[in-house]
Structures are given as C-alpha cells and as structure tokens.
C-alpha cells in the first residue's frame, strides 16, 4: 500500500498549485435544534407538554471556525466523534447553511458523506445514479455520459446495476456511492468516512482515484478516523474538537498532537485498513 503515499516533493508542489482558495470558511458557527426522540410523534409531544418538558435541544456543532483551503489541497479533518466534522462538511456542501459567518466555495462540490448513500433502496442502481446526478444539478445528457464510467468503476458484476439496491451488500453500496461521487467531475470532493465498507481491492482503487483527482488540482476534504490514511493522502490537516479548530498544519504534527491529546499511541489501533 506504499504506493498510496504522496512523496514529500509532490506535496510541496501540490499545495502551491493555485493561490486563490477553493473554500473559504469565515467565522462560521452552526447551531441547530434537534429532538432527542428517535421518531417524533404526536403522543410523545402531548406527554411532554403535560410534563412541561421541551424535546428540542440546541446543538452548537461548530463554533467560530475560520480557515481557507487552496485548490489542489487534500485536507484531512480529524477529531473525536461528535466534534462537528460532519456538520462542517454538510455546511461546505450547502446542505446545512451556517447560523452565522460565511462560506465561499469555488467550484462544483461532490459529496460522499458518512450517512450513507443518497439512495432509495427500492430503485435500481442505475435509477439511483440518474437521480443522484440530476439532484446534483447535472443534465440528463451529462448523467448518461458518466453512467458507463460509473458502472465500470463500481465493478458490481453482471446485471447488478439494473437490480433494486435493497439486493446490494453494504460494500456494493459503498462502491456505487464512491463511483458516483468521483465521476461527477467535482472540483471539490468531500469524503466523510464513506469507504469503510469497501474491500481492500476497492480501497486501493479508490485511493488511486483520489490521488488522480488531487493531481488534477482538485481539492479534497477527507474526514477520517484512520490516521494513517490521513497521513498518507493529505497535504494539510485540521483537528476539530467540540466545534472549534484546535490545530491546523502538517498532517504529521496535527495527528501527533491529536493522538497525544487522546493519549493513544500513533501506531496501534489505526491503520490504512480503516480508510
């Protein structure tokens, strides 16, 4: 897997590809109110009303975060669970607009977020790819042009693209999701822990594809708990803790600080297999 690592020389040239930032995050805070009930129902609302309780809780997911990311950077976002990494990704993707502050994104964003694939399991893989592409703002023609590449890249096996996605395994889901995300011609690719279900062969292929995108001066955000993959793929790194940026810098230094903070060794527990 050593082929995945980006050499030091490459890293230097890549971070200087373009001076104007691809993503500008300026003093962004994201607060949202959510319910702690799993499924909000009328009955529980009445019961709560009787007890004088409120079901909504305010979550301050991201607080006063600012950073710029230059074109051609692969930036790793690390942090503990619930640190606000995914919320930040959703804000950059435009899914959850910030409560205050400003986010400027230069280029087409493609997302591969942790919550699963934006897919309806009753529909076939092909229909889902089409719907996803159209939702992302492509025209029908553009989707058709990309479809064959997506199908070839996902390598599901004969006829699976025509079958309902409920018949897919989780790895197949991940393959389709990744194939769609990277073939949407993204200028900025957001990847949030989305590869964990793929097998080793697909991970290698995915990593190679990501590297190819970055060398074409695409920008990539990689949210991961796999420190080794952050260290090997990324040229820049941000550590977020409880909604605030703790540190920004060379992946190695940031990861060291983070793992020291967590009081875990850098070598055990995490490896590229968790990519």
């Amino acid at each position, binding site marked *: 897997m050593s082929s995945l690592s980006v050499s030091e020389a490459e890293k230097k040239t890549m971070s200087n590809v373009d001076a104007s930032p691809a993503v500008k995050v300026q003093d962004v805070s994201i607060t*949202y*109110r*959510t*319910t702690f009930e799993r*499924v*909000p*129902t*009328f*009955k529980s*609302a009445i019961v709560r009303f009787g007890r004088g309780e409120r079901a909504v809780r305010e*979550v301050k997911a991201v607080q006063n975060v600012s950073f710029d990311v230059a074109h051609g950077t692969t930036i790793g976002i690390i942090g503990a669970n619930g640190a606000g990494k995914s919320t930040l990704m*959703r*804000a*950059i*993707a*435009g*899914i*959850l*607009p*910030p*409560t*205050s*502050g*400003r*986010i*400027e*994104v*230069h*280029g*087409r*964003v493609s*997302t591969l*977020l942790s*919550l*699963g*694939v*934006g*897919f*309806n399991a*009753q*529909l076939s893989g092909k*229909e889902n790819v*089409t*719907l*996803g592409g*159209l*939702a*992302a*703002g492509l*025209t*029908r023609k553009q989707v058709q042009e990309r479809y064959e590449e997506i199908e070839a890249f996902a390598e599901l096996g004969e006829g699976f693209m025509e079958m309902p996605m409920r018949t897919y395994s989780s790895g197949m889901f991940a393959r389709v999701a990744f194939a769609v995300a990277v073939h949407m011609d993204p*200028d900025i690719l957001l990847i949030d822990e989305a590869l964990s279900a793929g097998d080793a062969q697909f991970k290698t292929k995915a990593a190679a594809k990501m590297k190819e995108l970055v060398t074409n001066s695409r920008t990539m955000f990689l949210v991961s708990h796999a420190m080794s993959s952050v260290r090997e793929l990324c040229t820049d790194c941000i550590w977020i803790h409880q909604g605030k940026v703790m540190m920004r810098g060379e992946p190695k230094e940031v990861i060291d600080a983070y793992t020291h903070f967590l009081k875990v060794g850098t070598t055990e527990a995490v490896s590229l297999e968790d990519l």
Partner: protein
Amino acid sequence: MNATSVDEAFNPSVHVYEPHKAGLPPLRPYFKALWERRVFAAEMSRTGIRAANTNTFFGQIWLVINPLLLAGVYYLLTDIIAGGAAREDSGAIFAHMCGGLFAFYYFQGAVTTGAGSVVGGGKLLMNMAFPRMLLPLSALRTAFFRFLPTMGVYAAIHLLTGQPLGWVQLLAPVFLILLTMFAAGMSMIFAAVQVYFRDTSSFLPYFMRIWLYLSPVLWFAEKAPAKFQDYIQYNPLYSLLGGWTDLLVRAKMPDAELWIGGVAWAVAALLVGSLFFMSREREFAVRL
C-alpha cells in the same frame, strides 16, 4: 442550493453560503436552482410511478382500473344502496360525483404523497444540497399523472349518462390549475409538518375523508343542508371543486364568487405553503 453567487455571470460555480435571512433562503437563486433541477423532480416521479405497480399483475393498467373501481363503489353506494337510481336525475348525480371524486382523489393523492416526500427522501436529503421543494413538487407530478387517465374514464361516463356538452367546458382546466396550486401549497405544508410529527401521515386519510364529505362531491352545492349554507364557502374545495364540476359536468359558467374564491384559495395556499416549507427547510437535514 441556497447559494448566492458572487459573480454568477462569470463563474456559475462560486457559491456563498450565509445565514438565512428571516429564516428563508435567498429566493432568487433558490427558484433558479429549482427550475434548473426540474428534470430531477420529473425523473423522481417517473421512477416512482414505474416502481409502484411493478409487482402487480395488471401493472400500469391500474391507473385506469382504479378510477373504474372507484366509480363502481360509489355507484353501488349512491345509486343502488341509497336507491338514487330511481330518481330521474340519477345520471347527472352520478356524473357529478365522478367528476368531483376524480378531482378530489387527485388532490388527496398530491397531498398524501407530498406529505411523505420529505421524510421519504431520507438519505438523498441528508447527502445532497438541492431545493427541497422539488420533493413535494415531484409528488404533485406523480398525482397528476395518476389523475390523467381518470379523465378518460370520466369522458366515457359523461357521454354515457348524456350530460351536456359545450364550449364553456374548455374552461375547466383553469379550475384544474387552481386546484393544482392549492394541492401544491397543502402538500408542502403537510410535508414540512410530517418531519416534526410523524403521525401526520396516519391522521391524513381520516382528515381527507372528512374533507371529502364536507365538499360538494357526493352532494350538490345548492342542496347543502340549510345550517351549513353559511359556512360552506369557507371550505376551499367548495369553490375549487364547485367551479370544476360546474364547468366540466354541467357545462355551465360558475358564479363569480366561485372564481374569486378559487383564485384566492389557490394563491393563498401556494404562497403560505411554499413560504412555510422554505422556512423549515434548513432543519430537514438534522431532523430526519
């Protein structure tokens, strides 16, 4: 989605995300994005219709079987069980009922599928930025395409029962458009409410059934009980379905109050529904 572009003319791919003013996303880019992605709503509705009947023996023919059975059930109810067939105007009553019922089922279908559209959109909603209003609008399209074949069934009933024909019938689509606007507004309201109260979809069929009985579908507007006559115009479907059946079934120009009421309800529902939906939209991603 809610991107206000800095220099849209030069670089369409620059997006700026800022807090929503007064809870609403910036409207011009919102509707621009909505228009650009209309193909998505159409495709979504098309795959939905295709998927709905794939497991059944009759498949797409159900789109015609449904209204036929519906007309049959109500024929049984009003003409046979209630003895309506003995009356001389039974043909007119039956045609009026079918014309109103098919339009009402269009409305009901749009609201019911619309109500589930946002919650059903699930992962697509959480992973992608697009104007959420596409989801209820896609449900509206589905309902419309389920409604279209029923008009063929109605045409047959109209001719068989010997109802009048006239040029004024060509105005009926105006009320259909008004009903569509009203249905769009209502389905957006219910779609947003459904996110907060998942029971909405369970209440909705009963709510709709009551609404059907309160609307001039199974009875003629002028034959409403005296004690209801004063309130009847406050039912939006009184003007909308009343005008529709007047034009379509009786080939007669509706009164001015039906026109005014119909337009007012349609515009009000669409405006309130879309503003309410957009104001809640940001929260959908964290509430699902």
